[in-house]
């Protein structure tokens, strides 16, 4: 029978992983993904880039909501700030993408502090509504600050090159997004095992107890807002590169809801869960499309008339069923499978 893993030292306890198998699979997975431009077509690459952007955004939101327990519905607002910053700096001011992309994160982080300060005493639904209100404020500002944002007309994003390659399409965009995703994921994994990460978890589990233990709530909550928004801003910057056009309609409220659905479906508080959730929810419509395309030549008038409704309902039903039967999310399902594998043939 297999045995569990037992950590004997502090360094083992805080290591990213002590398992060579895990590292081996991680490297193998990154290698396979990195080879994608050689293996798949442009459309699949577009989907993969969308998945990676969703991962970056979900990891950022997970840090705030999953790790620190601060519920946010302002994801669309921070994505918009990041996307507009990158678009304006690139297209109107001629900045290099080397600087404009990090600046997307910096501006989003700076604005998040403005939101964070009045929200420090709020928790749960109250905080969620405050962040939602912020999203509306951002929309209004973008709409009215026409001289800077071009108002409702939006901004075409152009001129993003790295090492002479146009990083707004194809393999160059894919590799840049992959690099940013790996950087962000490993950065957040490391951050979550530092003093800061543990303070965030303490705030999430019981903020009064955390304060008694000496955790500075103001400082750590603001830090959570700033770092999370930095990452979400970067996701927005990447979105603007992929879409090549930003307009306020791109950042609808539904994006904030989808982001929350991703981290809940993946497993709140888990980075691996956020990644799994982002992959699952981004690929779900594509999977449903492929599934329904099997019936494309069906003679049924009902099917041909209502295929889009059926697809939309199926999307909702899959999410509802998952949350009902796997409330711990995909990462919970993975842990159950791993436990079953380790303990087999015994149930427990």
């Amino acid at each position, binding site marked *: 029978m297999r045995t569990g893993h037992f950590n004997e030292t502090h360094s083992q306890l805080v290591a990213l992983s002590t398992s060579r198998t895990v590292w081996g699979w991680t490297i193998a997975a990154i290698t396979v993904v990195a080879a994608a431009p050689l293996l798949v077509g442009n459309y699949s690459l*577009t989907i993969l880039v969308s998945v990676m952007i969703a991962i970056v955004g979900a990891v950022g939101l997970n840090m705030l909501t999953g790790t620190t327990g601060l519920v946010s519905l302002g994801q669309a607002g921070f994505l918009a700030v990041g996307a507009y910053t990158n678009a304006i700096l690139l297209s109107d001011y001629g900045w290099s993408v080397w600087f404009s992309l990090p600046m997307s994160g910096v501006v989003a982080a700076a604005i998040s502090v403005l939101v964070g300060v009045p929200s420090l005493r709020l928790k749960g639904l109250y905080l969620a509504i405050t962040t939602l209100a912020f999203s509306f404020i951002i929309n209004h500002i973008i709409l009215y600050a026409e001289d800077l944002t071009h108002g409702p007309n939006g901004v075409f994003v152009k001129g993003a090159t790295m090492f002479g390659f146009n990083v707004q399409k194809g393999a160059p965009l894919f590799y840049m997004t992959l690099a940013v995703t790996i950087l962000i994921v490993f950065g957040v994994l490391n951050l979550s095992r530092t003093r800061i990460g543990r303070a965030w978890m303490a705030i999430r589990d019981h903020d009064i107890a955390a304060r008694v233990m000496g955790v500075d709530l103001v400082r750590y909550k603001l830090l959570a807002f700033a770092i999370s928004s930095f990452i979400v801003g970067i996701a927005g910057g990447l979105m603007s590169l992929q879409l090549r056009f930003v*307009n306020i309609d791109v950042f609808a409220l*539904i994006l904030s809801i989808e982001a929350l659905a991703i981290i809940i479906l993946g497993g709140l508080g888990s980075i691996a869960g956020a990644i799994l959730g982002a992959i699952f929810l981004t690929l779900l419509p594509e999977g449903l499309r492929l599934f329904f395309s099997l019936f494309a030549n069906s003679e049924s008038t009902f099917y041909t008339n209502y295929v889009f409704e059926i697809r*939309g309902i199926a999307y909702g039903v899959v999410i509802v069923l998952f949350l009902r039967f796997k409330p711990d999310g995909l990462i919970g399902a993975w842990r159950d499978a791993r436990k079953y594998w380790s303990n087999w043939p015994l149930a427990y």
Partner: protein
Amino acid sequence: MKRLAMTLAAFLASTAAYAADPGVTDTEIRIGDVNIMTGPAAFVGKGFSLGSKIAAGLINSKGGVNGRKITVITEDDGYIPARSFQALTKLIEVDEIFALNGTSGTANVMAMMPLIEENNIPTVVSQAPAAIVYNPVRPSVFTFGASYSDAFYAQLKYIHEKNPSKDAVFGIIRQDDDFGKEVEAGYDRAVKEFGVKDGIRLRFKKGTTNFSAEAAQMKEAGVTVLANGGIFAGAGNILGEARKLDLQLQPAEVWSEGIPASAKLLAPAGYDFMVADYVSLTGPANDKFMEMAKQFVTADELKDVSRYTYASFIGLTSLAAAMEKCGQDLTRECTIDNLRKLKDFDTLGLSAPVSFDNPEQHSGTAVGVYQYNIKDGKFEERAGFQQY
């Protein structure tokens, strides 16, 4: 050797698909359609896609475009620009479409624009004829449809000329976005030209549902002619609130209220509202179209026919006319050239003739004015297609 070379040349010449752009085979031309097939605005996309289906059915029943049948491939974007981009990527990469007819909303078509330009896809935009689509002009993009500005000016002109009154007070309520700006431009032009009293200008955020305060302000201002820039349920809510306060109004509406579902939303307020449109809403041309459509769609689908269906039908038939002129050597470049030369193309009376031979590659600017008759639940023509 010479014989072999000649055989090879003859083979290449006979296989038109060899030289053609993506989406064209010896028997088929694939046309893309990105539309709003799910969500609250799905009825717009459904009506639009139906127009493409009817046009393809009609063209194919006559032997296709130089023997090639048209296949329309529809992708849903749910009215979200990011998804429009992804949908068009799929149509280009996976389905290898030749041209594009359905282009969803304004922000959506703008999100697709880099892909359209990069792939030089012949595109007819007839669902979102906003100025930013054709200004600056994109070589492969052709726009069919009038501006909201002209549509509102046309209605206000008709109202003013039909019943000129010194006591008339004009007012406008409009969305706080690019669409609303165009509505206000038409209103602005009208009040300045007619010298009528400009009573009130109100703005609201997209998605607003409660207009009680705005209705009270309109009453206070004594508005008698209202340029209503609300859409669908919004437009109905505005008129509903006005009715509660017993405002005596002549409302002018956005052309989206010309579809049966929207008209039903506005009807309970009891105003004989007006609509201006670049496609015909009523008359023999529409009746003839419905008769013809029955051959190509089911009775269930026929219920979704709306003004968007006519716009889409005109878009695809004009695209097909340009493709037809290319003969067997159908390429995107040739189609674009022929679209640029398209002049006075007959749309079976569903709109003024289509001409793209102008610097903006923009047609359909002639607008007709219609009034909804509450008693019959039907639109009646008040002014035929005119340039404003």
